[in-house]
């Protein structure tokens, strides 16, 4: 067997394992009440503790985005429209995936490392021999915590980003608050908001699944833990941009359908 075969086979195996693990964990969601303490802990680690960094990121992204679009719109005397562009981009695109990026960097990598350390220290085996299913005890609370907090952070992050855009629009571009808000309102309709949340949910669940799966498959001590963490970041980011493209394409089709074109 050459390395190429192995790489492909391993990738397929890894993907299969991840999917099965995710489904198993989702099957254990029925135990959420029993595991509520673990879920709350995860929600705290994933959500509350990531809030400051997410807000900081989204604020600056909103500000830069306003500046950039402001420069272009000024050429056509349409600076008032920045609100519209910022909101539509923030709600459906920047909000969901920038939040996903921040979470993968901050939470996904450490989640994989944590589970990887458990695996290396035989804690996962210990759970197995105690007949405690790791998919229920370890994976489910993390997936659920991530799936709840990812979208929640996206909402907050998006609002902060829109606010950041507004500040720049008002102070640097000279757009009146009333104008900013008037156009901002037109930037997104309810479907857009749901779509943004759907994206965020997909990103969160896939990132959590990748992190847990890489953690659970860790072997080879500290080096293996590092590898699990690195693979998680790379794979999760790849999945996010990939799913994002799919979902945006799908969104366009839905829009066309609603408009009666399709």
């Amino acid at each position, binding site marked *: 067997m050459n390395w190429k075969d192995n790489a492909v086979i391993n990738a397929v195996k890894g993907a299969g394992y991840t999917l099965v693990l995710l489904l198993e964990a989702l099957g254990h969601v029925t135990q959420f009440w029993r595991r509520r303490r673990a879920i709350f*802990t995860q929600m705290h680690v994933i959500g509350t503790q990531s809030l400051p960094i997410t807000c900081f990121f989204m604020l600056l992204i909103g500000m830069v985005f306003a500046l950039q679009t402001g420069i272009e719109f000024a050429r056509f005397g349409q600076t008032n429209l920045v609100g519209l562009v910022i909101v539509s981009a923030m709600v459906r695109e920047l909000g969901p995936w920038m939040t996903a990026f921040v979470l993968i960097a901050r939470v996904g990598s450490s989640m994989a490392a944590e589970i990887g*350390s458990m695996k*290396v220290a*035989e804690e996962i*085996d*210990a759970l197995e021999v*105690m*007949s*405690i299913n790791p998919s229920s005890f370890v994976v489910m609370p993390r997936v659920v915590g991530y799936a709840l907090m990812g979208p929640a952070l996206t909402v907050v992050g998006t609002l902060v980003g829109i606010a950041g855009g507004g500040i720049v629009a008002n102070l640097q571009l000279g757009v009146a608050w009333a104008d900013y808000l008037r156009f901002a309102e037109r930037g997104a309709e309810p479907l857009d908001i749901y779509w943004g949340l759907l994206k965020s949910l997909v990103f969160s669940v896939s990132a959590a699944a990748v992190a847990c799966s890489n953690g659970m498959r860790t072997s080879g001590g500290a080096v*293996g833990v590092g590898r699990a963490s690195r693979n998680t970041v790379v794979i999760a980011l790849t999945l996010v941009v990939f799913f994002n493209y799919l979902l945006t394409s799908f969104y366009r089709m839905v829009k066309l359908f609603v408009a009666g074109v399709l």
Partner: protein
Amino acid sequence: MSAGSYEIAVSFTDVSKKLSGRQILDHLNFEVCKGETFVIIGYSGTGKSVTLRHMVGLMRPDEGSIRIEGDEITTMSRHELEIMRRRFGVLFQSGALIAWLTLFENVELPLLEHTKMSKKKRAEIVQQKLEIVNLWQDRDKYPAEISGGMKKRAGLARAIALDPDLVLYDEPSSGLDPVIANEIDKLINRLRDEHGMTQIVVTHDMDSAYTIANRIAMFHKGSMLQIGTPDEIQTSSIPEVQHFITGGKEGQVSRRSNTAIIRGMAPGMLSQRSAEAMDAKEAEEAEAAVATEEPQEGYVLLSEEEAAKSESPEPEPRSLEPEESHENP
């Protein structure tokens, strides 16, 4: 399910297992009787932990049959394995405590997951188990806050929380100071004598093996090279067994000084040594050597060169597997 009337607790019949292209278990055969302490010795990285993993169904053999109290486990479904595993308590090499739970919660975990006991009843049992291992006063600490030896003892408390019939130990005394290692040995003997537990212990520590074992099995090249009582193993005529139990120190440097180094005694003290630690013949020989040879300078306080010479080279290539580093770096 078994009626529990079997005399044999665990039996391996012609069990073979290949891992990453290497034959780790090769027609492995042995039986463990109910109520005995069965000690498995053998070189590092040869497959003793793999043997234990087969026993609890964490690994499945390529061939062969493994029976636990008469039940064939190699073909069990995941669900059946989960039920079967409740008969086991396992102490892993590093304790394998859950990092985000306190010692109390760690020991409580199996009770919480598998019984419908009241909180009070659970607390009682946890207290009882933690007192056995002398950790009740540390119940609110997290695993990261305690030493390796304490982790192992807490792991043992957790392993026996559900009063299992069978307890497996993977190197219970490695990385522990002699006093605590000794305490674990006493505990193992207590569990056998007072609770009638069947125990299987993987260890490198021969002193401990002689203290706790009803029978000792030497694992070598995928199967049991010899199984016998501690006496039989000590007087074994099989070179590999002798090599292992003496730490490979035999016949390398002059026998006399070597003996002194192993035992940590001056040559004149040899005769006072307890008979069970070394066979009488060996002691006589060593004593005779002392008598005939002229004591040299720096005899007890060996020069570094000599000490280095007396260190045995590794008997077998050690695996570089990370699991071999048992203790915190």
